[in-house]
């Protein structure tokens, strides 16, 4: 990406190498190849093509489901297009922005940018230290020009021109025959803005890369009943996405305690506000042994910021509490979180609360006595058209659970990890886990299994999903982006232009010739030139050239 809008035409590619072609050895050929590649890569045309490629390559990222955004949509795509999906997968279509070809395009673009901008900046730096170029012989051939005869003395005309060209870089020269000229130039800041803009693009890219290397992001569900979460290791998280240089040690240590989840909704169920009342201890608190907690409210658009990390409230849900009482009188309670499954926001949830009978040591026996309370939970239950449980409001107005109590082998002894939200489908298919009771329960209701065991629905605790983000690059990116806009505004608003005045002494005064050339885009110089010309030639007859 060479410099933007305004470059002077690229000089034709010349090959000023003194080496005759026939003497070129393999090394020479290789060097020539490299040089030509470099020239090709840094030409404006290549930059344009790369820009188009970048735009084109980004589009599938918006049109195809992306795994990083929503893995479920990728699964849907596989189901809908079983033949196309593997091909898209191989081409990186589900991970466009992590794909090598996308990286190849923007890296080439960055190289092209550096290769184009830096030499040009040097050129303009030199240009800035040289006096403005000499006045062309024939000003009438310039895009903007004017001339007039005046009764003014040449000295007076020149003095007036100097006054009008205040703020321009200018130099005066004499030509044979008493002819005097002024060359003036303005708008060097445009190049500065241009350079700043392009360099900050690189800054943004570096900031992004740094964030990807040293940043991390994790999700954790915390029950909103005074439960705590501490950012001490990966193990505390439900999911953790680490940067390339993050191994999970040395996380910024801080603790968050979630006291309460508060949501308000409109009568139609549309959420009005979400928030979680929390308290936290920063890393400094923990190190210095402070035991008090700092109160804070995390809400949408308002994360908790501590120790360079951010804690967001990204979701909420409910954890129904069940108590299982075995015939021998022993009982166990559990309130594991269930997950919302309904995208419309009614918070209809599904889950599996798992129990093991206490006191059973024999592995064979264990595998017949494990219990899972599975099913559907609705914070405000109602009966759907087919008799199923639906939720008509996300708030806890009439908590109802359609439970499906299963007895048998949950598969938790197999050594394989399993989701906390579901039971192992293989165990159901093989008959090792089977439904022993089904019921629709409100709070306080009890369901009795054939062996006399009872399951009671005790109550509901809300939970919140906290997302912890750590991105050391983001302030750099922000800084670079602000500088970038500044550079952009500068380079697009300032016009680089030249202005020449030639004054010929004549019998009864002088003849003034003016010429103007926009070094950048022509748009917009005409008015300024005309104004200058009018002012300079005002007291005389303006003879347009």
């Amino acid at each position, binding site marked *: *990406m*060479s410099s*933007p*809008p*305004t*470059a002077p*035409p*690229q000089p034709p590619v010349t090959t000023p190498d003194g080496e005759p072609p026939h003497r070129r050895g393999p090394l020479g050929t290789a060097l020539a190849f490299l040089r030509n590649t470099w020239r090709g890569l840094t030409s*404006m*045309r290549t930059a*344009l093509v790369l*820009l*188009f490629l*970048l*735009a084109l390559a*980004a*589009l599938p*990222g*918006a*049109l195809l489901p*992306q795994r*990083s*955004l*929503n893995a479920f*949509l990728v699964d849907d795509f596989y189901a809908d297009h079983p033949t196309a999906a593997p091909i898209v997968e191989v081409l990186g279509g589900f991970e*466009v*922005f992590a794909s090598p070809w996308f990286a190849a395009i923007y890296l080439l673009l960055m190289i092209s940018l550096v290769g184009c901008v830096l030499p040009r900046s040097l050129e303009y730096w030199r240009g800035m230290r040289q006096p403005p170029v000499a006045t062309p012989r024939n000003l009438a051939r310039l895009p903007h020009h004017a001339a007039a005869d005046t009764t003014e003395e040449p000295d007076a005309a020149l003095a007036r021109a100097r006054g009008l060209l205040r703020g321009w870089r200018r130099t005066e020269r004499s030509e044979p025959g008493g002819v005097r000229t002024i060359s003036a130039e303005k708008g060097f800041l445009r190049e500065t803005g241009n350079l700043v803009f392009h360099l900050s693009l690189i800054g943004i890219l570096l900031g*992004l890369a740094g964030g990807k290397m040293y940043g991390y*992001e994790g999700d954790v569900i915390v029950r909103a009943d005074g439960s705590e979460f501490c950012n001490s290791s990966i193990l505390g998280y439900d999911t953790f996405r680490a940067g390339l240089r993050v191994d999970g040690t040395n996380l910024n240590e801080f603790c968050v305690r979630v006291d309460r989840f508060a949501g308000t909704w*409109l009568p139609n169920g*549309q*959420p*009005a*506000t*979400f928030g979680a009342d929390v308290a936290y201890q920063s890393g400094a608190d923990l190190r210095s042994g402070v035991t008090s907690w700092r109160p804070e409210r995390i*809400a*949408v*658009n*308002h994360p908790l910021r501590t120790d360079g990390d*951010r804690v*967001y409230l*990204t979701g909420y849900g409910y954890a129904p509490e069940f108590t299982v009482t075995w015939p021998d009188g022993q009982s166990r309670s559990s309130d594991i979180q269930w997950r919302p499954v309904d995208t419309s926001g009614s918070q209809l949830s599904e889950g599996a609360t798992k129990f093991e009978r206490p006191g059973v040591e024999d592995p064979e026996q264990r595998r017949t006595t494990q219990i899972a309370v599975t099913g559907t939970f609705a914070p405000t239950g109602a009966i759907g058209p087919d008799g199923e449980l639906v939720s008509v409001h996300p708030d806890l107005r009439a908590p109802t659970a359609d439970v499906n109590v299963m007895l048998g082998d949950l598969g938790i002894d197999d050594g394989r990890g399993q989701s906390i939200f579901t039971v192992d489908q293989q165990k159901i298919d093989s008959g090792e886990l089977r439904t022993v009771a089904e019921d629709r329960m409100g709070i306080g209701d009890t369901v009795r299994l054939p062996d006399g065991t009872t399951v009671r629905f005790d109550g509901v605790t809300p939970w919140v999903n906290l*997302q912890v*983000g750590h*991105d050391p690059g*983001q302030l750099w*990116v*922000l800084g670079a*982006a*602000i500088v*970038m*806009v500044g550079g*952009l*505004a500068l380079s*697009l*608003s300032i016009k680089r232009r030249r202005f020449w005045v030639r004054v010929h002494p004549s019998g009864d005064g002088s003849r003034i010739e003016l010429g103007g050339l926009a070094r*950048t*885009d022509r*748009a*917009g110089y005409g008015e300024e030139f005309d104004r200058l010309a009018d002012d300079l030639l005002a007291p005389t007859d303006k003879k347009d050239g």
Partner: protein
Amino acid sequence: MLVDPITSMWSDRLFQGTLVVLLLAMVFTSLEYAAARVARVARKEPATVGAGAEDTTGTAVEVTEPPADASDGAGDRPTRTRSDRYGRIGVSLMILAVLLHAGSIVLRGLATYRWPLGNMYEFTSALCLMAVGAWLVLVRKHPTLRPAGVFVLTPVLLLMFLTGTVLYAEAAPVVPALQSYWIIIHVTTITLASGMMLVPGVASLLFLIKRNERPAALAAKLPGAEVLDRLAYRVTVFAFPLYTFGIITGAVWAEAAWGRFWGWDPKETVAFVAWVLYAAYLHARATAGWRSSRAAWINSAGFATIVFNLFFINMVVAGLHSYAGV
């Protein structure tokens, strides 16, 4: 109270009024455009008189200007061609439409006690206001552009019609994610920039028509190619930094709302694509061989991408911005 129904009703009525006035403005700008040829033919004969007045930017439309100097003493009011009269009526109606439209949007905000850019109805409505407003500013600065007004009003009216029908949303509070002062900064900037980009998008298409002289009937009465090209460039150069600023403020907001400042959400991705296309346009303007037609194509593609981002991404592709949808 969450919504004031009376104020909201008046907002809707003003919107309908805007639509009617814009339709009338379109009728008059069309008449102006249609009458322009008559004026030109009528002036063909004494054309030699004013030949010197035709400078490089001289265009067909310029001849629609009244020969005011020639008809000195004809009366206190300068005589105007029919085309000119229609054009003036058209501009007056557009000014009226802008006032009604602004009133509609302000009342929407008062009715809902929030910034009135919370859904696609409000966003597209404001975009149209920005486009007409930008056009009026341009016409004031460069009166020769006026006869091309019909080409700006056509897409605006189409968008307004869609806004009032398909996209219409009852006045209501917005979801928590949109309750932030960033909506004022981010969405307003993006609306302003998108609305302004409509003008160069149209100007570039007209430039292509003019340059290729196809369709010839359309091309004959258009402003000169150079005028159109310059118009497209100037507005783009103004709107592009604004658009960039809008994207950056969007990233800042996303950092607070979604936990990351850039996540290649479909809306972000297509905004990026549009940004890259406009960057390509600016580069093309400085590259030999790309300066005119190709640059114009790129600019049109840029605006097409913005429209695509507005409609297709919000309504078809699921993404984080979808709550702003219908």
